[in-house]
């Protein structure tokens, strides 16, 4: 009896050890987070019925900085079709965030995830990560990292069909 109990406890302990630290990212079909549940610095624009790309970035992340001009161009190109990019900065310090924005204005709306709770919910698997949501607010695609033109082409091929969907 004790042996069976011991085995159960042992299994639970081992499972706990092996799965500790595993983080599951947001998956396709999941809905946009409720922004009000998180402590954000900055204003979230109106995203209702729009195709939204949530881009998780930080001032210390060089590929994030490299991606901004291309993303700003996409935002500009499709703004009238209802495409919005929302940057989520995971900078711990407000002054790092402010200094970066002053030096490198991203060209799209961005907010800072003050307590990093939003990041812990989105669980981006890399920096930067782009989460693309359809007009229905459901997650369609997740992009890890930024690889220049290759990423932009991929984003184009994925976002264009979403823009064609009816609100």
């Amino acid at each position, binding site marked *: 009896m*004790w*042996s069976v109990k*011991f085995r159960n*406890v*042992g299994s639970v*302990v*081992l499972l*706990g*050890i092996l799965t*500790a*630290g595993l*983080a599951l990212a947001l998956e396709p079909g999941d809905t946009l987070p409720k922004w009000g549940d998180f402590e954000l610095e900055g204003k979230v624009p109106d995203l209702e019925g729009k195709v939204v790309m949530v881009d*998780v970035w*930080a*001032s*210390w992340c060089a590929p994030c900085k490299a991606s901004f001009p291309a993303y700003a161009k996409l935002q500009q190109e499709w703004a009238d079709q209802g495409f919005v990019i929302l940057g989520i900065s*995971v*900078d*711990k310090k407000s002054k790092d965030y402010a200094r970066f924005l002053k030096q490198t204005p991203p060209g799209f709306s961005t907010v800072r995830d003050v307590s*990093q709770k939003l*990041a*812990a919910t989105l*669980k*981006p*698997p*890399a*920096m930067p*990560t782009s989460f693309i949501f359809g007009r229905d607010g459901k997650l369609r695609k997740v992009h890890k990292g930024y690889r220049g033109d290759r990423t932009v082409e991929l984003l184009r091929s994925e976002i264009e069909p979403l823009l064609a969907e009816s609100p």
Partner: protein
Amino acid sequence: MIKRQRFLLLFLAAVALVFSGCQNVQPWEKGLLADYTMRADRDAMHDAMSEHIYFSREASSGGRGVGASGCGCN
């Protein structure tokens, strides 16, 4: 038999204790590693003192960070 089980339980507890010290740094937390305070060369005075201790102990003045082969002939 019970002795063996106790040993296993202790072993598992020890393993759990060791692994609880491990922490994954998530991608969004890596700014901590990029912080200025994480730089090894952030304190010039500390570097100079470490260098002084190094060459005093090793009798190798200029043995680190100075060009040439180390033959002492120039």
